[in-house]
């Protein structure tokens, strides 16, 4: 990641952490979007069991992701029971891609050797 350094016009190389997505900095929200990236849609129960979360914790994180525009939540009636489906939006998929790219860049970072 680079940024314009100012009046001199020099390009400054920024640490890849600046490309991390603030919403996806939460490990649980990253897990939810990653799980959704593998499918067209998944229901609440599947997400809960895959990520190993309580209903209330998953519900809270899904609301945060929906507010950010990263997931779309729909309810379908099947007989007497309502079923909640979750889908990753294009914005969510894009944010996930960028966040994972930043994580890859961080994972590849190494400290300079002592002898310079």
């Amino acid at each position, binding site marked *: 990641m680079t940024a314009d350094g100012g009046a001199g016009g020099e390009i400054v190389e920024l640490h890849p952490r600046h490309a991390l997505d603030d919403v996806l900095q939460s490990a649980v929200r990253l897990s939810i979007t990653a*799980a959704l990236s593998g499918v*067209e*849609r*998944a229901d609440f129960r599947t997400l809960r069991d895959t990520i190993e979360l309580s209903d209330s914790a998953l519900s809270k994180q899904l609301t945060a992701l929906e507010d950010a525009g990263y997931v779309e939540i729909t309810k379908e009636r099947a007989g007497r029971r309502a079923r909640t489906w979750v889908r990753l939006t294009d914005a969510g998929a894009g944010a*996930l891609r960028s966040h994972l790219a930043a*994580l890859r860049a*961080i994972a590849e970072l190494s400290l300079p050797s002592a002898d310079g």
Partner: protein
Amino acid sequence: MDDAHLTTQPAPDPREAAAALDRASRLAWTTRAQGWRWVRRYLTGWAVASVGLVLTIGLGGRAGFFVGMAVWAVVVAAGTAWSSRQGATAAGTARRIFVGAASWAVVYGVALFAGMSLWPGLVAYWVPAALVSAAPLLLAAWLPTRHDAMATA
């Protein structure tokens, strides 16, 4: 320098970043595998039922036709109920099921029409015809999926 794009969040260290990448990749793989697993089972079950149906109709005469259709109705209802309970839908699922079902309908129709007209009750025709009727569904079930451009790939 404009710092609007700078994060205030603490950065993970390289090891934490690698662990997060690994977990994201495993979760994406898990849901994707779950999404395809039930489609494969569904289409394979349909293929097995098709072999039974074609044999029952072809070799069972008039009674075979009614028994076959009655059992088929139960199998279709059970398959529909079971598939509607699955909680993960892989990308391309509807297209794959449609292509498998449409191809099966054509093969099944031709096999039945030709067999009833030309070789009613002939084992040498109905056994291969029954096996051929399963082929479109088995192909739809087991042909490798195109590797989707997953974000975690």
